């Protein structure tokens, strides 16, 4: 029990707070689907209000970009499950998460994250969608600084880690060169093809659980924007205004291109196409682009 509480606090301090407030996101050992529900339940009911106050303020700040509201409910069980999935996903990007004996551990971790996300349904109403967006608006803004160190007889890249001082010593004698490389969400996974596919799949699953975030980042490079049922549901229901605002939030041109591309590959009902065409037409009108 004590270890679980520490994990909850670690999840809160090292993952949830940086994800919402910004700062260093320090994932620890993968949580996995077996412990996810227990941790999420404990986090949803056990964290003191004082710890949540800053998160609430930051979430309201994010939500007010789309809707003039003054209060949001605390993080729900579903949101904590999604945070667990984010944690495992980020942890899986660590090149050192695998080993010689378990080269596919990263894929296993991401599969576990998918299992966690499978327990999270789509938002039931606009308010829940807005609350999830307030929590995960920065999901695709996660960055990682890798440091590539070259010396006279070798080189090594430290992903999200600081190179050891001994490796940087005697820089002139050993001809040491150090270069920092900024990695975004799209380039953070550097493993095998299977790993990258699982990585993209988890990201897509995460975005499907927060449709407003999906719309607000429609112009992203990876994963490519798709018209998912929750997104179409937002546009066709009472959340249309919020959905359109979210769609216009980012780069309008890229969002329009992504929306058109996604609509072209969609084989849906006529009513769905009508909704999407209306949304694209409105986006064109707002953005003033062809």
């Amino acid at each position, binding site marked *: 029990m004590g270890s679980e509480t520490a994990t909850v606090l670690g999840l809160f301090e090292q993952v949830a707070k*940086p*994800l919402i*407030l*910004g*700062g*260093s*996101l*320090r*994932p620890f050992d993968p949580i996995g689907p077996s412990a996810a529900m227990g941790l999420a339940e404990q986090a949803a009911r056990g964290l003191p209000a004082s710890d949540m106050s800053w998160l609430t303020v*930051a979430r309201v*700040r994010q939500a007010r*970009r789309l809707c003039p509201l003054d209060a949001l409910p605390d993080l729900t069980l579903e949101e904590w499950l999604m945070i667990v999935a984010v944690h495992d996903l*980020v942890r899986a*990007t*660590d090149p*050192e998460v695998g080993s010689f004996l378990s080269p596919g551990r990263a894929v296993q971790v991401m599969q576990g994250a998918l299992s966690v996300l499978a327990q999270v349904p789509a938002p039931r109403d606009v308010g829940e969608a807005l609350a999830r967006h307030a929590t995960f608006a*920065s999901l695709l*803004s*996660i*960055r*990682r*600084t890798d*440091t590539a160190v070259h010396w006279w007889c070798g080189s090594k890249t*430290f*992903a*999200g*880690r*600081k190179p050891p001082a001994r490796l940087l010593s005697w820089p002139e004698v050993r001809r040491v060169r150090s270069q*920092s490389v900024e990695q975004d969400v799209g380039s*953070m996974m550097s493993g095998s093809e299977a790993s990258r596919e699982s990585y993209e799949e988890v990201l897509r699953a995460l975005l499907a659980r927060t449709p407003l975030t999906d719309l607000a980042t429609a112009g992203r490079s990876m994963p490519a924007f798709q018209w998912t049922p929750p997104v179409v549901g937002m546009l066709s229901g009472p959340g249309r205004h919020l959905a359109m605002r979210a769609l216009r939030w980012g780069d309008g041109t890229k969002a329009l291109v992504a929306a058109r591309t996604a609509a072209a590959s969609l084989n849906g009902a006529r009513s769905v196409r009508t909704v999407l065409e209306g949304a694209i037409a409105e986006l064109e009108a707002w953005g003033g682009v062809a």
Partner: protein
Amino acid sequence: MLDRVAMHQTRLRLPGLGIDGKGVAFGSRGVVLLASLERLVAFLSLYTSSQSLADLLASLHIEVVRSKMGTREVVLSFAAEGSERMDRVSEVARVTLGHTFTGSSRHFVQYRDAGAPFGYDVSQVLAADGDYILYHNAFSQVYHRERDLDLRGLLLRLHPVQDPAFGREPGPCLLVAEEGLGPAVIQYLIRSHVDARVGVAEWPPLSALDDGNVRRYLFDVASLPERMSPMVRSTPGLTAFRVVAPGIAVQLGYRHPITLRSCPVFPSQGMVLFRGEQTEPLVLDTMPAMGSVSAFARVTFHDGTGLRALSGPDLAVPATTVPVRLLPSIEPWRSVRATFIPPSDYPALRQILYVLGTRTLQTATIAFTRHGAFLLNPSGVESTPVGHFLREIRPGVYVAAGYDPVPAVDPEVLYQALGSPSNHCVFLLPNTQAIGVPKHAFVRLQNAMIEGHAWSPVDATPLEPALAASIPRVVFGDADPTPQE
């Protein structure tokens, strides 16, 4: 004890004592016995404050005498001449606790007082061989002469005492300047239009260690302006004196203990300068040759560009021509429309530019030369109080303010002598040759003095959105590879 002389008494016992027409007993000489030198000074001070010592000087002898008991006292002896003189001397001596005697040769009896209006006579003459045998109601004493006291030397040895009131009022005075300070004082007096004469006096070296004679400048200022009084009193090396008697001057702010005007002991052809601050007086046996300070102002021009034309061969100037000079003038300044600003005054000019009015900046023109800057302002240069002002005596010809060109030729003649430079402005300055500046070199002051301002474009600092939040940054392990955003 002495015997009072009775009215109509004719026979007296003291040898050399007689009766004058009033019946008063007195001899050919009078004697004043004073207990010390301080009493002597007090006696002289009191005496000279009310009357002149001139009538006594011819017969006055001051001696230090010693009694048989070894006490030293001071004796003044002088020709009595009459009871009136003796009465005056007696009154002053009484104030200074001295005793007055009369007699002749060696025997002197107490002079008359209120108790004996006709004087005293001795009952018995002492048989002694002293130089002075004095008979007094209280004592009879024999004194031997020890040494003489020179009144002139005594006056020179007395230090003046502080008297701030002396010399406060403006008037004539003498200035003594140390050798190095003299030329500066000369120029100062010339610039200030103070009428004065100057000479150089020499004193022998104070000791064998000195290199040579001590030279000092001596200024005879007819009327020292009151504004200069603090300067001459406070400047080291410069001492101001006021003549209190022919041949005698005392430093301003000090007073000699004795009224020197009543002591004509110093020759009038010389000068004794009594200095304060416990310093010895300066004695000039004869006054040095003195001349007006204006003669010391070197105002001639040599090889001037314009003035050379005056003696140039083109005009066939005869040998009787003279160069034009500038002499200090007390005439009021008129048409002061230019100023010469030497390079040393450029910082002051830069400061003044900040307070000049718009009109001055627009109308004034300036030209820079290797000698300095010349600033012209047709409306007057009073608004730019820097440099040496110049008067415009005719268009294009400027003369230093406070000076007049001599010979006092017409400005047009001077202009022609300068070669009629139509495209030049000619400036005549003291102590330097005439300077001609091309007219096209003058530019408007506001154009000349505003320096170019370098500027560099800078990017505006982007405003951070109020709702901006730092991004999440993944860090593995304990180390943080980058600082927090």
